């Protein structure tokens, strides 16, 4: 499974669990318009740390906070190498 497909699956899973209507996941989709709340993102980040072995937000490198879904995926792709 690619990093992108893992992330996509996790977004869908958490949206289902949290009863949220998820917008179509294009690279340009702004995360604030994804339909997910901060608790959903918190859960996604925690689970991705388990499945991909990285938490880019807690790295020693400075990271730009992702604005779009594409930014989010690229951030994980960079750290998951």
């Amino acid at each position, binding site marked *: 499974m690619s990093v992108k497909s893992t992330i996509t699956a996790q977004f869908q899973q958490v949206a289902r*669990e*949290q009863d949220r209507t998820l917008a179509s996941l294009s690279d340009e989709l702004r995360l604030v318009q994804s339909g997910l709340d*901060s*608790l959903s*993102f*918190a*859960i996604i*980040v*925690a*689970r991705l740390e*388990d499945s991909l072995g990285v*938490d880019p*937000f*807690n790295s020693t490198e400075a990271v730009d906070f992702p604005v779009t879904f594409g930014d989010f995926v690229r951030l994980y792709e960079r750290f998951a190498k």
Partner: protein
Amino acid sequence: MPSDSLWGSINHSGLSRARLHGPRHLIELADLAQATSLAGARAQLQGKCVLLLTRDQLTAALALIELDGVARRLVLCPADLAPEHLPGVIADAEADACIVDAGTAIGPIPLPLQVRATPELVRSELPRERSYETEWVLLTSGTTGAPKLVLHTLASLTSPLDPGVGPAEAPLVWSTFYDVRRYGGLQILLRGLHAGSLVLSDPDEAVTGFFARAAAAGITHISGTPSHWRRALMSGAASTIAPRYVRLSGEIADQGILDSLRAAYPQAVVAHAFASTEAGVAFEVRDGRAGFPAALIGNPGPVELRIKEETLQIRSAGTARCYLGARAESLQDADGFVDTGDRIELRAGRYHFMGRRGGVINVGGLKVHPEEVEAVINAHPWVRMSLVRARRNPITGAVVTADVVVNAASVAGGSPPAEAVLARELTDRCRRSLPPHKVPAMIRIVPTLEVSPSGKLVRPGA
């Protein structure tokens, strides 16, 4: 000064037939009238402040019986007292003597008088007069940091005992998973000595062996923490004893463990009690339901309960007098109430424990009490126990996660569901009864959870 020492009051209750069952020794209390376990050193310990540092609980119990009214102060150190805390305990207690046994392994002890005790009795007359109103000092079971020293007297320790509990027609046989040097265990030791016999546990003994000894002694009453009881139910040995009374204390008794014990011991009263080393025993609930009736709050009586800032406070004759030591804080407030630090919440006419003040997980500014989530998870028939904790999170500061131990055999029968299925069922269950921030983001199935020597689930950072 109470007229009776511990030995005197045991004799007044007419129970010279009472027995103390250690893992390897059986003591007939009547024999203690003309015998000693202290190798003839009792006179030297007169007026001393004595640390009990034996490994063996039976030896410690015998020393308590022999030295109450003789020593000025008795300091009850559980066998797991860490060596690095010994100097602090000696200083705070102003100790000048100690009792050790062959198993004492705490390193060099900087005390001038060290008496080696054994459960092998030798002939000696036990004095009946009290020379001192001996102070009893208990150590609190903090999971981190140095233990606090809590000062009681025999009168405060025995005040929760029901005066109606005298020599019964058929003597009671008590037992406890607790170390009798901790408050919960000491309560059972005092009950056992005044109302029948007592079977002592041993930290190196498996539940199977302990229950075999308890069954052989004809056990009728037994106490432990919910964690002790979960371990017993997992051992497969639960059915080897048939008590009439099962008591839980020391941790929150949730509905899951109460129901499991009701199913395992249908003939027994399953009671859960609230007590702490500092506050004493507050109450006992016998209706098999989690929490306690709201009517107990504000009731005048020997034990008074009140709520301040959602936290339970207690005042009674069973309350400890003070903490000992140079840096001791005050134990009671100006009105004599002890703050338990345990948060409670009213739901449908009953108060439920919500966990310790300070044990709260903060998820994006919303509070989660781990125990509240554990209670929901533990109600699942395939769950034996669980630990809910915070996991650091860059978005909300923390999220809630749960580690779950599966029941090997559920009362429902069959075999446990696959791990992924169980985790999903538990998530669904939490989602139905809890707001979203309290639902664990991750549920892990684990083989075991760590339980401290005091019988409580080890909470990280607690």
